[in-house]
């Protein structure tokens, strides 16, 4: 089995500042990290690798510095790493990004068929969750989003069974391979790399593809040119001045307090009609 994991290097959003005067995002000095959601996807892929001796390739599109993200993925145990980098890719929105990634995946497929493509749930810098679905659509692969568990991969039958977190419950889904899976956060914890893997990652000779090497001819589909999304304004939201509500009851007894609190919560947020998983309805 060949698993491809798409990762992105992002600025550590916890450390981003908005310029106090100009209100622009100040990226200077903000460390670059691997999008945390992508690490969850990678770990899930590596666990599949441990179970089935799959081959794991990581792919990223980004500036040359994104190399460090790939090396990190290699240190955790990915087998191969490909960096897609070209000035022509700069300024890409999700449409252009998924176009370029899909092109690269086609090229990778020529070498070795890809059974599964993993991505994180979304990135922490864009929060769109569109690139995974974009890749699936372009490559005509099955799409499974917000996957919380991989139950089974049946290569013989070309099938995968997963659990998907959805509002009101969990869906158990089965589909055919090849498929794109976007992985839910928090479902695993990244492993601690071994020293030999650290050495291998540091010494690994990365595959670097520019636009041409990735087999992309049409420059109007990539980078800024291929990106219809326009960021019209960036601003820091004004903090809400809303005060916390203090709930009091006559008796001051915990039972009464809890009952009042619950009543308040349910008037504000009515219980969800759990339409997806019938068993969940019975339980509530």
């Amino acid at each position: 089995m060949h698993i491809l994991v798409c990762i992105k290097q992002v600025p550590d959003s916890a450390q981003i500042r908005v310029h106090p005067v100009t209100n622009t995002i100040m990226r200077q000095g903000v460390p670059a990290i691997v999008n945390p959601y992508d690490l969850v996807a990678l770990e899930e892929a590596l666990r599949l690798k441990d179970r089935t001796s799959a081959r794991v390739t990581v792919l990223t599109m980004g500036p040359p510095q994104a190399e460090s993200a790939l090396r990190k993925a290699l240190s955790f145990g990915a087998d191969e790493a490909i960096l897609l980098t070209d000035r022509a890719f700069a300024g890409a929105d999700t449409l252009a990004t998924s176009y370029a990634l899909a092109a690269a995946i086609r090229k990778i497929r020529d070498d070795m068929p890809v059974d599964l493509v993993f991505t994180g749930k979304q990135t922490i810098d864009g929060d769109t969750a569109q690139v995974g679905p974009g890749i699936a659509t372009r490559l005509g692969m099955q799409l499974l989003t917000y996957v919380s568990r991989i139950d089974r991969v049946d290569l013989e039958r070309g099938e995968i069974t997963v659990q998907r977190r959805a509002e009101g419950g969990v869906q158990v889904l089965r589909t055919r391979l090849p498929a794109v899976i976007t992985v839910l956060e928090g479902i695993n914890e990244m492993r601690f790399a071994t020293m030999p893997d650290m050495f291998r990652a540091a010494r690994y000779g990365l595959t670097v593809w520019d636009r041409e090497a990735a087999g992309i001819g049409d420059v109007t589909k990539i980078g800024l040119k291929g990106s219809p999304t326009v960021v019209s304004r960036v601003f820091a939201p004004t903090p809400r001045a809303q005060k916390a509500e203090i709930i009091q009851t006559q008796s001051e007894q915990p039972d009464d307090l809890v009952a009042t609190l619950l009543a308040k919560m349910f008037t504000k947020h009515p219980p969800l009609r759990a339409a997806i998983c019938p068993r969940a309805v019975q339980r509530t």
Partner: protein
Amino acid sequence: MNENFDVIVVGAGPSGNAAAYTLARSGMRVLQIERGEYPGSKNVQGAILYADALERIIPDFREDAPLERHLIEQRVWMLDDTSYVGSAYRSADFSKPPFNRYTIIRAQFDKWFSQKVREAGVLVICETTVTGLLLDGQRVVGVQTDRAGGSIYADAVILADGVNSQLARKAGFRPEIEPREVALAVKEIHFLPEETIQSRFNVTGDEGVVIEMAGKITQGMVGTGFLYTNKESIAIGVGCLLSDFRKQKTSPYALLDRMKAHPAIAPLLAGGEMKEYTAHLIPEGGYHSIPPIYGDGWLMVGDAGMFVNGVHREGSNLAMTTGRLAAETLIALRSERKPFSARNLARYRASLDESFVMRDLRKYKNLPRIVEKNPQFFTAYPELMNKAAHTLISVDGVDKKAKERAIRQRFVAARSRLGLLGDFFKLWRAFE
């Protein structure tokens, strides 16, 4: 696993980077291990870089190093509760390249330095902690890390692991550090627009200012404060002996908060956004606290060897110089085909003794003890000087002679004639 290197460098601060870079440039196979997520991630932000030490390692560093501002003015302030007396030196000559001192942001600078180290051919492994030294009898033969399969061997290990140097203590190469040998420093970064910094500090372009401070800000403890201008931020901090913090039961954070509220300091920071708060130890013990710095198969550089000149707030340059000299010692021995034995590595100590590092530390060797025993230099004198300035400057109908007499009386009342003489003598001895 059978990984073998000529040298393993533990730590990717200025000392480790200087050593690793120098070694690799002469063809040694070098492994550098850093516990931080990336080089610089563990290092306190905002510092002064002394060009000379780096120039001797990377002559053309100015071309691409992330430098903030070059310093054209140094102010020294003695603070009382609401005032300060100070001096300043500013020179247009400091505005002529090549510049001598810069402000830097360590996280960025260390990253840049590390990139150079990699390009020189060093294998740099981050997020990995060296947990112990591998010994063959007394000889260091490699390191143990916190990762599975993590024993690695080398002909020599350079300990560039900073002030705590747990490795050296664990291996018994050095005694525990005394709380009076280290200062605990806290530092914050305040972001402000470039133009605000330029107008507030009376500079243009990339010119910058340093303010060194002493006096009431340390609330009677032995220590100093500082303020540096970066391009778009101000670094401000204060450090005092750890033993004093213990005695006074003050928190460094409260100390810095009080300092920031000082009426001479607050306006400099006004409107800024505080971003980083960091605390770190600085070796302040000086010459007498330098531990053994070499042995069979190992060398110690930078803060690990307590190489900091507290009087002039120089640390990173001593770190780089000791790192370079350690590397050059190994390179020379290798070319002479001599083993890295303690006897041969004694050359490292000899080359340090010859350099400004030991000369400067020797010069101030008694200072740490003198200031520790004489807190009046940080308490009574700043107060007296502020009062004196106030008296002299106020125009209030009192004649100048009477003012001078009043000032003199205050000094004598505070320290007695003999005390003044003694203090003068002590200071003179400490700096001679």
